[in-house]
């Protein structure tokens, strides 16, 4: 294959018709929140620009990001981007294995030094010099650092790569560490979620390939177009929240009527993701639509906050002490009330037992 072949050529070679290609371009433009004229610009970019290779690495993870990706509700989008990516390197999806596969990595580094995109699924464990994740006889963190040195930008797929996720949950024995805390000298785009939505993944990667720049990111380093709002802001059950109509138990009248799930722990009000707009599996459903609250899987340390079924989650004050603000605060307030009552009683006792308090003498004079 030629070093300068375009995305379009690659797609055509993979049996994608021009019609399907154009459909993909308009769909992606819509997904990215761009105007209709951008469909043409995306098509033009994919037709003329040399293909940017994508290397897809896997650290400590469960492969749910890949699972989500290949189950894109719109198979076209997934297939298109997937065929562009899997050409280079993805341990889970590529045909090559063993030394052959590792050679591909080196080939990409040699050929496209500083030009390829590094997509990371999962994160590296740093404890014991990275021995908790060994690939091709070496700690994964070394492979990650080596590839990151030669890449253009990094996409951190999923909550593992973005925040740490379950393997980084306390006490985090392997010291699993999110990508942005390991690779400090390259831009890292966080695409959190456990897993992220397939359309979000294809949207982000297509934006980068087509426009040759990073998507606009928010303060946390997440693409604004997909993580700009909370689930709560676009939730179809929001009117029930505002009205004060809540599911109290999962088998009550409110649950049957589709009331708000906030009281049974829905984290929609604090979770930034596109679930309530794009939904899952091609718009089939999403957690709240299926009657279960959001777990907040796209948010930092969502594993470490205690019950998924209470709106008041745990605060980890120190070490292993876990309690909700209501428990801690309620105890403090109750202690204060008891303390005040005891102090008042002691004050009265002091007053009564005072032999000749100078104060009362002065008062009688005055």
């Amino acid at each position, binding site marked *: 294959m030629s070093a300068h072949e375009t995305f379009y050529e690659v797609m055509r070679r993979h049996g994608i018709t021009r019609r399907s290609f154009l459909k993909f371009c308009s769909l992606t433009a819509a997904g990215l929140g761009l105007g209709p004229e951008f469909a043409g610009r995306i098509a033009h970019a994919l037709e003329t620009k040399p293909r940017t290779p994508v290397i897809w690495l896997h650290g400590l993870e469960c492969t749910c990001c890949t699972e989500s990706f290949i189950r894109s509700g719109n198979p076209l989008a997934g297939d298109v981007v997937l065929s562009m990516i899997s050409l280079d390197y993805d341990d889970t999806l590529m045909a090559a294995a063993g030394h052959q596969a590792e050679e591909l990595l080196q080939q990409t580094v040699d050929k496209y030094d500083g030009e390829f995109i590094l997509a990371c699924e999962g994160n590296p464990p740093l404890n014991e010099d990275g021995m908790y994740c060994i690939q091709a006889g070496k700690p994964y963190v070394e492979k990650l650092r080596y590839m990151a040195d030669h890449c253009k930008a990094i996409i951190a797929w999923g909550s593992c790569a973005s925040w740490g996720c379950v393997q980084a949950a306390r006490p985090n024995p392997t010291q699993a560490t999110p990508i942005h805390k390991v690779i400090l000298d390259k831009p890292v785009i966080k695409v959190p979620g456990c897993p992220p939505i397939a359309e979000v993944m294809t949207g982000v990667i297509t934006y980068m390939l087509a426009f040759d720049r990073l998507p606009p990111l928010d*303060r946390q380093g997440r693409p604004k177009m997909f993580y700009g709002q909370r689930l709560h802001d676009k939730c179809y059950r929001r009117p029930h929240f*505002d009205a004060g109509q809540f599911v109290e138990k999962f088998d009550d009248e409110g649950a049957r009527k589709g009331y708000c799930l906030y009281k049974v722990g829905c984290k929609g009000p604090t979770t930034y993701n596109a679930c309530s707009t794009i939904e899952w599996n091609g718009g089939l459903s999403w957690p709240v639509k299926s009657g279960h609250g959001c777990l907040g899987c796209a948010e930092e340390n969502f594993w470490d906050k205690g019950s998924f079924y209470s709106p008041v989650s745990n605060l980890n004050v120190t070490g292993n002490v876990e309690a909700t*603000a209501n428990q801690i605060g309620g105890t403090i307030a109750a202690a204060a009330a008891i303390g005040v009552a005891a102090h008042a009683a002691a004050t009265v006792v002091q007053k009564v037992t005072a032999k000749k308090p100078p104060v009362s003498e002065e008062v009688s004079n005055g």
Partner: protein
Amino acid sequence: MATFSEEQNLPGPIYVYQIPVRIWHWLHALSITTLIITGYFIANPLPSMSGEASDHFVMGTLRLVHFSSAFVFAIGLLVRFYLAFIGNHYARELIIVPVFHGGFWRRVWHEIKFYAFVTRKCRKNVGHNTLAQLFMWMINIVLALFMMCTGFALYSQGTGAGSWADSLFGWVFVLEASSQTVRMWHLMGMWLMLLFIIVHVYMVIRADFASRQNGTSAMITGWRTFKDDGPIEPR
């Protein structure tokens, strides 16, 4: 500058709390009370309403009242800072705690002993006693600013990226990426405010009959009155 020597006889009354300070105090008290009640029910919602969603606006009203009171609280706090500049000596006590003043910690120690019933000797105070001043500063400056910053940061989640609340207070989420955690710390702050109210109200009422000066009435009339004509020093 209203400083009195320890030995000088101080019969009072002394005008301490000027009208704007008193108005601020009661507005502040009202806003905190409203914020605590509505805030508690935002975190721990009331029993579910039945019927059509369009017939009710319970959570919406709670939030509206919470946010409105928050503006009273926050703007009041800014006005209070301004009052410290233009007001009298006592208007600055809340904001500037003279921790480097030689006698300050000695007096704090005395107040601790007094409240712990170790000594019966009671010191006259024109403004706050030093222990109260320290406590006031921690709650009404440190905790109040904490509640204001976390509160507006959470508010910015509704007003959206690029809004004024996001521009001014979005940095909170740089310090703590999880807004759920910020929410829980904000809730924790509510409980500390409740603790403050319990202690503050008790201490003021206690001062009315177990100190050498008035308590509650000072924040109503503005005048500090004393129960004896003696000097400030503990006796």
